[in-house]
């Protein structure tokens, strides 16, 4: 969560305090059985549709029994030896107080993690061509899910992969492949072979999405992993904004271990005095 504190100026400090408070609130809410940001001002007048094929609106992940945050999967997953070694290494480094530079912390799209367990509200926009899952707060993530039977042949690998969907009755079947292998999954990364499927069904009252997620990645897991999540309808809220790259403060990177060259920061904000306050310096690669 280092990114939450990448703020420096007066307004940034206020935002950071807000983000911090919201994060703490989220943690508290999580403990109480409720996730998500509560700071966004409400917008009255929004009601959920009871159309089982209309997911548009605002949702947030319900708490997951036995899990601190909805994207934390736990250590008892059927990891392959290499993935298990990676997870244990990350846990050991964390226990020693060393921060590993992950794509998530270094402002890259979060891919699978965000799809499994967003900790901020998710806006869903929908039309005949596609459904888009949008998170603007706490992290910025856009997942476009196209209504189609097949993925394109010339798929360009990406952090978030490529998603298609079709209806099976009133259950939406989402199929995602095409990951670039840099996406984040809990305490580890996953491979380019990740294949995520989701079965999403809306409750009759329109207030809950039941989501079954299957992760199939033979490089990471010895067998497919299936998770269940529920998202609850949220009344309208003003979309807030999260700008991870805004203040690349020097102290955020101090002591951080960069195992991948691409994650090393290009621009660093140095704290000075007087007119030199918040000076950003970039070194072109």
């Amino acid at each position, binding site marked *: 969560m280092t990114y939450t504190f990448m703020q420096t*100026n007066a*307004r940034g400090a*206020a*935002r950071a305090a*807000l983000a911090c408070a919201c994060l703490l609130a989220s943690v508290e809410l999580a403990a109480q059985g409720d996730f998500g940001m509560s*700071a*966004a*001002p409400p*917008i*009255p*007048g*929004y009601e959920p549709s009871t159309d089982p094929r209309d997911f*548009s*609106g605002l949702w947030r992940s319900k708490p997951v029994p036995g899990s601190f945050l909805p994207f934390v999967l736990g250590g008892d997953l059927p990891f392959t030896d290499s993935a298990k070694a990676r997870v244990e290494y990350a846990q050991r480094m964390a226990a020693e107080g060393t921060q590993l530079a992950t794509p998530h912390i*270094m*402002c*890259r*799209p979060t891919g699978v993690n965000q799809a499994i367990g967003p900790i901020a509200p998710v*806006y869903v*926009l*929908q*039309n005949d*061509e596609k459904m*888009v899952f*949008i998170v*603007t707060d706490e992290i*910025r*993530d*856009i997942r*476009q899910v196209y209504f189609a039977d097949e993925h394109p042949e010339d798929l*360009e690998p*990406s*952090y*978030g992969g490529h998603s298609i969907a079709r209806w099976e009755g009133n259950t939406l079947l989402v199929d995602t492949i095409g990951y670039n292998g840099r996406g984040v999954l809990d305490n580890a990364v996953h491979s380019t072979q990740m294949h995520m499927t989701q079965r999403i069904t809306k409750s009759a009252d329109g207030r809950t999405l039941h989501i079954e997620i299957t992760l199939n990645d033979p490089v990471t897991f010895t067998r497919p992993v299936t998770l269940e999540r529920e998202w609850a309808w949220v009344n*309208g809220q*003003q*979309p*807030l*904004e999260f*700008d991870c*790259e*805004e*203040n*690349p403060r020097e102290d955020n990177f101090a002591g951080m271990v960069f195992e991948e060259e*691409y994650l090393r920061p*290009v*621009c660093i*904000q140095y704290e000075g005095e007087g007119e030199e306050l918040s*000076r*950003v310096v*970039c070194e*072109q*690669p």
Partner: protein
Amino acid sequence: MRSGLNLLHGLLLAGVAGLACGDELGRDAFNGVWLIAEDTPALRTLDGELPPLLPEARALYEEHLRRRENGDTYFDRATWCAGVGLPRLLIANHPFEIMVDKRQVGFFFEWNRWVRLVDMSGEELEPYYPMSLGTATGAWQDDGSLVITTKGLMHETIMDHAGLPHSDELVMTETLRLIDADTLESHIRFEDPLTFSAPWETKVTYLRQHGARLKEDVCLDRIKQGLPPI
């Protein structure tokens, strides 16, 4: 009599053509990927003039011009991939997609995956705090156009690539109108009493990008490859 019929016919055709420009195309016709028609590195008024900057703002603008000319881009937060905000994303040479939904109109900007959600509830929303994309509310008009009012635009961003400054008081009102199925026109009005001596307007035209889909753009990865941030 023939000429009268011709006139009537002409009026009818004009009426149909008029409808086809707005109402008849319908709201869903706004859906799609759009790209600005002309390179617009610097915003100008409808008369092609420099916006009416107040002296202090003009001095800052000229400083930005000087610094960019000297290769110093640190006044421009695009340098380190921070959000460049509005209206700059609307005039950048990067495509964006509009998606019309019942509750919101989404603008998906390819540049670094920014998304703008325009609330269509009809509620007056006061900005919670200034943000790069501000707080936007929209309303469909009888003529088929979409009017979007954006407040709470944070002053740390610049309005265009050249470096036009603004304050947190900036209010941006866009009137988006389909000229035809593949041409979208936006009249944008700017009011910012701390920066400009009077409100001013500009016009931007976008062309539909048939068959295009937005790519996952990661600015930090791009500058790692030695490419420009924007």
